[in-house]
């Protein structure tokens, strides 16, 4: 459990280090998408897919664990 707590502490630190990095060059990026906030829609969709897949793998894990218990 200690490792898990440390990981959760590490996460915001990593995120913050990303936000502090500055940049400025006139290359066309998806700035419109970010300025009106629509990029978050993409993040939401990607996260939903991720969550769905992980939930699926998790349920498979549970099922196989149950089978293992039965066979022992």
């Amino acid at each position, binding site marked *: 459990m200690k*490792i*898990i707590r440390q*990981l*959760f502490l590490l*996460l915001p630190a*990593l*995120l913050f*280090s*990303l*936000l502090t*990095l*500055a*940049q400025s*060059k*006139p*290359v*066309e*990026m*998806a700035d419109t998408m970010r300025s009106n906030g629509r*990029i*978050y829609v*993409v*993040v939401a969709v*990607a*996260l939903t897919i*991720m969550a769905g897949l*992980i939930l699926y*793998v*998790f349920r*498979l*894990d549970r099922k*196989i*664990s149950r*089978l*293992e218990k039965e*066979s*022992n």
Partner: protein
Amino acid sequence: MTNEKNYMHKSWWKLIAVVLLTYTVIAGFLGPVPHLPLLQETIRNLYFHVCMWFAMMILFTVSVVNSIRYLRTFNLKYDIYARQFAVVAIVFGILGYITGAIWASYTWADPNKPAANSFSTIARDPKLIGAAIALLVYFAYLILRDSVQDMDKKARISAVYNIFAYAILFPSIWILPRILPSLHPGNDGENPALDVKNDIDSGMRTVFYPAVIGWTLLGVWIATLKIRFSLLKEKKMSA
């Protein structure tokens, strides 16, 4: 073959996989990236496309280690390990190939030429051919396995073949593409994925390395599920 409890039944590393992948998706889309012409926002594919190859290489390494363990002990358990890790690694390799094809068609294709012309140039790229060779060698591994009926013979032949396949993997995806001209990043001995001088900045590493670990752990998770299922099946058949 017993059902002893081991790392496959622990949940802490599965939780790490979920946390790291969530971080990858959030920071991968929202974090700052270098503004480069042509690549533009597609540089974020580093967290997805490149990670597929990294995960593939790590899983193939686990597979070959288990093949060697099999040859040392002749315990069929290790043959199952080797096979399932190889299968998941192949899946990651195919995903890497497909995502690379999508990425290339938006960054390498010449808009002034007909699409077919660009395709023939891209299809001749040594990095793509090298990766295709590596994957085909591993397809042959699966075909070879399934063509042998006898359990012990199957395990032994495929373990030896797996070592050969692993020996061809790195020349074809690391050495060969580095010495030939290519559209893919990483010519003249440069790093194909993490070229700090020209392509990525150090900030991207704070997402890239967690992403590699996350995707690899997801692959390990799926592989261990397949292993546990195979061991159960084996147990049922021998009972």
